[in-house]
Each structure stands twice: as structure tokens, then as C-alpha cells.
């Protein structure tokens, strides 16, 4: 944005981070999360998924995960993975190894049971489907 003032740019940056319950995956998070996302990207390969499943610690060593990333993975804590720079498009591949789908992952992040999370999704249909 050529005509944008420095203040407007800062306001836009701040707005970018102010969506409740949401962190947009920007350069700061991408830098922070590089190793974790690189490990998740490797899971496109079945042999790598098996290697991770058979020895998680050794596999994480190969990717030089930060202590916060390691702990988040060990704890299966998706919000902590995101806080540590994980990107959901890549984290989904890790979730797949655990046998979790996106609704399971949604439940983990919102603190709901999977059934409650699914019910919440359906409720949005019941309440608002007529909108579109």
C-alpha cells in the first residue's frame, strides 16, 4: 500500500492480530514455527509418519524443535502448537497420525467434547441456514 502512512500500517498490523480466538499466520509466527511446520510437512511421506510414530523423540531431534514445540507435541496441545508457530494446514498432517480429524482438533482447541463441537457446528446450520 504505497500511500499508507506508518501509523495506518501499524494499525493494520494490530488489527491483524485482534480477531478473538484467532492468530493470523504472519511472518512472526512463520519464523517462530519453521521447524515444527517443516516436521509436519515431512509427514506427506508415509515412511516419515511411521518413523515419527515409532520414535517421536528421535524424530523431533532431527527437526531441531524448540522446547515449546516439543512440549506442545508431547502434550498433544494444539493451541500450544499454534502459539509455538504451528500452521493448521501443516499441523493437520500431525493430527492425522494421531487419528484425529478436524472436528476432533476443533474440540481440542475449544475445550468442548467432540460431540458438543459437532453439535455447535450443526446449531449454526439450524439457526442460520436460511441466510444463504
Amino acid at each position: 500500500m504505497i500511500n499508507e502512512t506508518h501509523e495506518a500500517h501499524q494499525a493494520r498490523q494490530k488489527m491483524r492480530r485482534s480477531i478473538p480466538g484467532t492468530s493470523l499466520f504472519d511472518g512472526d509466527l512463520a519464523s517462530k514455527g519453521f521447524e515444527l511446520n517443516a516436521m509436519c510437512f515431512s509427514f506427506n511421506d508415509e515412511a516419515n509418519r511411521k518413523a515419527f510414530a515409532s520414535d517421536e523423540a528421535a524424530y523431533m531431534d532431527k527437526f531441531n524443535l524448540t522446547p515449546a514445540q516439543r512440549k506442545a507435541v508431547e502434550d498433544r496441545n494444539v493451541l500450544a502448537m499454534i502459539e509455538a508457530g504451528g500452521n493448521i494446514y501443516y499441523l493437520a498432517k500431525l493430527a492425522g497420525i494421531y487419528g484425529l480429524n478436524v472436528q476432533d482438533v476443533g474440540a481440542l482447541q475449544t475445550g468442548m467434547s467432540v460431540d458438543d463441537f459437532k453439535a455447535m457446528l450443526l446449531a449454526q446450520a439450524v439457526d442460520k441456514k436460511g441466510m444463504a
Partner: protein
Amino acid sequence: MARITGGYFTSHVPAIGGAIVRGDQQDPYWKPFFDGFPPIREWMGKQKPDVAVVFYNDHGLNFFLDKMPTFAVGAAAEYQNADEGWGLPVYKPFAGHPALSWHVIDELVSSEFDITMCQKMLVDHALSIPFELAWPDADAWPVKLVPIAINTVQYPLPSPKRVLALGRAVNRALRSWQGDEKIVVVGTGGLSHQLDGERAGFINPEYDKFCLDNLAADPDALTVHSVEQVAELSGTQGVEILNWIAARGALGDISLQEVTRNYHIPISNTAAASLVLEPA
């Protein structure tokens, strides 16, 4: 002269692939979504396009964060699908159309879009699922592919305004192509959904309706929001609407009519829609 027969838009969740493999199309959970597709198949059967120009986003199959192009155009003779990390069945390969791809690339760079050109590119469920839905029984895909990937993963993302302009530049390329192919434009992704964070599960039918209602007649209405505002309105993965906006631009500034529209909540975590537009 090449002719643009219309635009086909659909959501592209991986779980749709699972439902197809299991044959769950008539299952009560899936039926309202799959019911959107018989009219689309019928339309494709009548139009018989030769080429599909597809705007989609990669889900960490071809592109990693070490090199993330904002816009990438494929120029390969063939595109392979591959394991995306879930061990799901891999879909049929896609025949490319390198000559048309390079023509599109020429036009885009002439229009000052600094794209990434890819002679090799793996394509993921964002392409395979829409093709499976449109041509479920095909032994080979009946169209050649020109894939255009838009970054919806790593900020800064392109704005709605920019992707509409990108699509319009693609339209200029298609209209100046000297071949006699029939071309269908495809936009895949969304609609509103969010997979990550405490707001996971967010869906916004009001914004989805705004997009569906304006896409044909007034696509510029969708450019009033910054992409950060789209994320707020539509969820972090709802920004995949960028693919729809770009595809709309590629249809050109002509009068369009809706052939069919379907909207259903939820499929997996997503507000799902399918839509066909054709010249009025």
C-alpha cells in the same frame, strides 16, 4: 476462437473424498451437500469443456513455507496428485495444457503480476475433489488443466481486490487465446470456516450469502474488505474465498446467470457451497 463456457465453484474439504470412497453420497449427513452436484454434472455434460482453468490453494503438498509464492501458475504437461499426509487414496493425474499455461503466464506478467511459474507441480484435494464431484465416473479427467495457486496460508495474503484483478488478467489471456477450446473456469475452497484456535468451528452464513449473492452481478462488492477483514468475517480458512473471487474475475466483466446454487452447513467444519455461472 476459444470460448469460456462458464464458471464452476465448489468447496473442497478432504472429508468429501472420504465420503466418496465410502459411497456415503446418500447418507443423511452428506446428501444435502452431494445433492448440489447432479445439476452441475448435467451442465458439464452439455457444455463439454476441453480445458479447466482452476484457481485453488495448496494445502502443504507442493509448497512449503521455505518458498511460498503468492500466485503460482502451472505449465506442466501432467500434474500428479500425491499423499497429503493422511494416507488417503491418490487421485488420477491431470493432463496439462502447457501452451495455454504459457499464454496465461505471458499475459499475467505483461499485466504486471509477478507470478511463480511451475513446470512441475503436485496438486492436492483442492483440485481433485471438485473434479471428482463434477466427473465422478470418469476413467480419465475429460479436461486439460491450467492450475493457478493462490496463497491462503502465510500472511501477508493477497487482497480480494488483487485476486479479482488477477482473474481479470487471466480473462484477457483466455479471450486472446487463438485455440478453439471450450474453457471452464473453476474456483475452489471455503466457504466460511475456521480450523485453528479458540474460534475453531466459526461459520458465518451472513458473509457467505453476501459472497454468493454478489459474485455474479457485482464481484467488486467483495473487494471492499481487506483480507484480514475476510478472515474475521469468514474464518481463517474462509479466506479461500479468494479462489472464488479470482475465478469470477476470469469469467470477465459480462452479464452472468446462475445455473445452479447449493448451500449447506456444515460439511466437516465448513459451510459448503456449489455454484455454476454461465454467460447470460
